[in-house]
């Protein structure tokens, strides 16, 4: 290309100027971009950088210790370790799980579950084991560089020294589930938190849990922990409150160890004056310690599918026909309506049964009780007497009277999942259920002997007998000690004159202390026990065996209600009576109650 020199100089000057302006402008633009990024929004990026490299790790708070009435430990914490993986790419986490699966005992199903959990919450550390043993921790720590994404944290681990003896009362703890995380009760809880799942652990979660702290670790882009971040920057964990129970742990373990072999049942004991639960035991039971750190699947399905339902709390989450223990309720209602007093006789003597219309109602004793007054009928548990007593009171007065005694409500014990009993609130109940022509007045006969549309929990029976023992409005039963008794007082009392109440107590004393009384064979030696046996019909097998009572009869310190399912086969002894009697004896002995004058010294517990 031909060009003159002067032209060339001018051209270069022009083009040079354009290049200078263009490049200078672009460089200024770049400088502006850096200025905006570093100066104008620098602080925002500083934060972002910290978010990048700092990972908050929750420091678990130790749960409160639970003590029994004598200061013995019911639930405590022992050192344990949590092994978790820091958030990161899914493949990396899966690979980490695979490398540890053998050592931590992670089954293929569990592995899938873990990966699913990580998918749901990809930005939270994934807990692999929250009850790792020292050998597992050592395995990881020895190979630290290979497991840089793994965090091992000490976390107090729950231990229930009495294990099976306290299972239904204490419940257990476990990792919070996805559904629970959504629940308003657990607002502010983070995944991986250990919460109370059942029993007292669940009931008093807020008091026991404490507040977890936070510590920060610095991680690199691969998610590996590089170091602990400034120690002062986190917040320490606040331990949970301790809990003191009214439970007598020694009594509890005794109830477990002497429970009749191979049977199912439950027992509850209450201090009738303050509502403190002294004993709450259900059988068969399970070891809540095995639930800590994740329930093994096979154990869970075994417990769930066991026909004996070991997870069922038979004290407050099950109801049974109350059987003859109901006769004291009939007596109380009848005395209040004026239909009965302790000397009342019924028109028909007991000959082993009684006809009503075209039906024949049997007494448990086919030889009959002959003619008895109320006291004798209680002592001998005469059905024929109580059929007539029920009829005399009448269905309407009877259902109303039972309602007035608190039946049909929950007792309000401090345990989750309590169920209320069943009892017809009035004759409408039968109209609803069978249609107005579908039933006859004879229902009252069945109701009067604790059968029919009548199901009560063991706990409810104990509460009523406690009210009978003291004559006061009962205090709602509670496991955790509570100073504010007024707030727990129920709105009803048995509502009898003291003389009437004493008459009933005397009749119950005869049950357990006079020859011919249904509980005479197992009478308590140095103290007078008052009580009532029961044999409730069970369509699935042998009748259930009941005993509800209190001792000492005149100055009650303990009310006990016990049921042994199918514990009263024909022709044998009722299993609940000796069981309850022995527990009461042990308790009164343990509180150092002096023997009553005139009673034989206690020999040995049978």
């Amino acid at each position, binding site marked *: *290309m*031909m*060009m003159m020199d002067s032209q*060339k100089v001018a*051209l*270069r*000057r022009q*083009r*040079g100027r*354009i*290049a*200078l302006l263009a*490049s*200078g402008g*672009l*460089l200024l*633009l*770049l*400088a502006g*971009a*850096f*200025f905006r*990024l*570093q*100066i104008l*929004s*620098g*602080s*925002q*990026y*500083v934060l*972002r*950088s910290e978010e*990048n*490299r700092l990972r908050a790790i929750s420091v678990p708070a130790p749960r409160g210790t639970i003590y029994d009435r004598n200061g013995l430990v019911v639930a405590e914490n022992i050192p344990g370790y949590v092994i978790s993986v820091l958030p990161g*790419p899914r493949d990396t986490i899966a690979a980490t799980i695979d490398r540890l699966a053998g050592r931590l005992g992670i089954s293929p199903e569990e592995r899938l579950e873990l990966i699913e959990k990580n998918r749901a919450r990809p930005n939270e550390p994934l807990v692999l084991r929250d009850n790792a043993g020292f050998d597992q921790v050592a395995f990881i720590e020895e190979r630290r560089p290979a497991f840089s994404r793994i965090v091992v944290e000490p976390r107090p681990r729950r231990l229930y020294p009495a294990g099976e003896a306290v299972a239904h009362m204490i419940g257990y703890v476990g990792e919070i589930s996805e559904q629970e995380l959504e629940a308003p009760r657990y607002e502010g809880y983070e995944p991986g938190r250990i919460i109370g799942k059942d029993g007292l652990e669940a009931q008093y979660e807020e008091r026991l849990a404490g507040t977890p702290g936070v510590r920060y670790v*610095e*991680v*690199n*882009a*691969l998610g*590996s922990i*590089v170091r602990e971040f400034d120690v002062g920057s986190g917040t320490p964990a606040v331990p949970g409150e301790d809990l003191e129970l009214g439970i007598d742990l020694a009594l509890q373990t005794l109830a477990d160890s002497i429970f009749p072999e191979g049977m199912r049942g439950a027992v509850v004991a209450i201090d009738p004056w303050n509502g403190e639960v002294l004993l709450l035991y259900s059988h068969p039971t399970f070891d809540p310690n095995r639930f800590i750190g994740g329930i093994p699947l096979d154990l869970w399905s075994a417990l769930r599918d066991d026909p004996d339902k070991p997870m069922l709390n038979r004290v407050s989450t099950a109801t049974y026909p109350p059987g003859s223990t109901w006769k004291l309720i009939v007596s109380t209602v009848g005395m209040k309506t004026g239909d009965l007093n302790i000397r009342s006789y019924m028109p028909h003597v007991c000959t082993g049964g009684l006809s009503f219309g075209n039906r024949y109602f049997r007494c448990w004793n086919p030889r009959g009780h002959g003619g008895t007054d109320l006291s004798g009928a209680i002592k001998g548990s005469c059905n024929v007497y109580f059929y007539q007593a029920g009829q005399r009171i009448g269905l309407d007065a009877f259902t109303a009277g039972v309602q007035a005694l608190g039946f049909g409500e929950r007792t309000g014990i401090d345990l989750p999942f309590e169920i209320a009993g069943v009892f017809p609130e009035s004759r409408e109940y039968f109209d609803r259920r069978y249609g107005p022509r579908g039933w006859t007045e004879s229902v009252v006969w069945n109701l009067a002997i604790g059968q029919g549309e009548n199901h009560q929990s063991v706990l409810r029976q104990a509460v009523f007998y406690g009210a009978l023992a003291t004559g006061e409005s009962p205090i709602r039963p509670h496991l955790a000690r509570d100073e504010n008794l007024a707030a727990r007082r129920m709105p009803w009392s048995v509502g009898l004159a003291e003389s009437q109440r004493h008459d009933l107590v005397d009749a119950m004393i005869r049950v357990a202390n006079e020859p011919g009384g249904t509980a005479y064979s197992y009478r308590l030696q140095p103290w007078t026990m008052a009580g009532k046996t029961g044999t409730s019909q069970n369509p699935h097998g042998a009748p259930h065996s009941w005993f509800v009572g209190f001792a000492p009869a005149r100055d009650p310190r303990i009310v006990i209600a016990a049921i042994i399912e199918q514990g009263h086969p024909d022709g044998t002894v009722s299993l609940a009576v000796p069981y309850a009697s022995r527990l009461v004896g042990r308790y009164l002995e343990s509180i150092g109650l002096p023997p009553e004058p005139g009673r034989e010294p206690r020999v040995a517990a049978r």
Partner: protein
Amino acid sequence: MSWLRRIPGLGDPTLLGLMLLLTGLGIAMIYSAGQVEVPSVATGIWVRQLAWLCVAVIAFILASRVPLRFLEWFAPWLYGVSLGLLLLVLAIGTGPSGSWLELGPGRLQPAEIAKLGTIFMLVRLLGDKDEDFAGLSRLWKPVAVVAAPFALVLLQPDLGSALVFGFILIAALFWAGIPLVKIFLLVSPAVSLLLGFNWVVWGAWFVVLLVLLYYHRPFVLESVGVILANFAAGALTMPLWNSLLPYQQNRLLVFLDPEVDPRGSGWHLIQSKVAIGSGGLFGQGFASGPQKRLAFLPEQHTDFIFSVVGEELGFLGVAFFLGLFAWLLWRVLRIAMEASDDFGSGVTFCLFAVLFAHLVQNLGMTVGLLPITGLPLPLVSYGGSFLLLLYAGFGVIQRVASER
């Protein structure tokens, strides 16, 4: 300082000082880039860069000693060899995008040598007194000279480097005095290629093009050619886009919105911005930027070295580097303007353009102004071939300066 001028081939000692200073700072930053808490290839790599520097210095001295006339004569040979190497690398290339040739102790990126070869060839062609570039169609020769390496580099595939070749063409034509409108019409199909994503915008672009053609009035055939080329380019946009590899598509997409894929393609950009942004005014201190230290910053010793500068030295450090670069560019541009030799002037300006293109593209990428294309920062980023090219180029520039 006059004794410096007496060194044969050393025309601009200030430029030499700036070059050495930036290289030294670069090696310091490469050292810092290796100071990480995670095993990284970057650790200790500054020593290798130092070794490359020795080779580069030899190239610099040799280049400054070679007469420009010899270079001009030698241009076709160098160009031919570069094309040969580019073909070779397509066959036996190694490395992330197959752009490296294993060469005994080190690796060579033929694309870098080809930049120099193409510049020499192009400037020689444009300076040929027998050639006439009056008509648009007469530009086919310079276009062809660039098209060959452009295509070969694109096949590697290395879009970023290929674009640098396009930029070299524009710079060379610009400096040769080709009217701006003509250059504009020449690159118009490339604009169509970009705008082809949206029919409305593309249509508007055609209106602009027609107005330009009406005022400029080139030959009718040329006008038709420009229109057809634009049409073809616009129509090719979508098929071409679909033929891009997913990672290339992602790089362009995350440029528009890095949060689209924060763990994947957006990661580089987000982490780079976080690193630079958290540097603030004074920075986190040399060698102690947490983003880099904890390996959040990718490619911290090569493409994203300036993010380390931003994080550790703050805006003050960034401004210092930018100032040095601006000064260096200005010295180079001045030599191009003042050169007595046309070939030397053209080569110097093209090298200015290459430096500038790399600088803007690299820095623009680290702050998210431009898509990620993987172009290194001149003199600062780790990379032997590019350093070699730059030092050879600076040698030529010094020669040009000494001959003015």
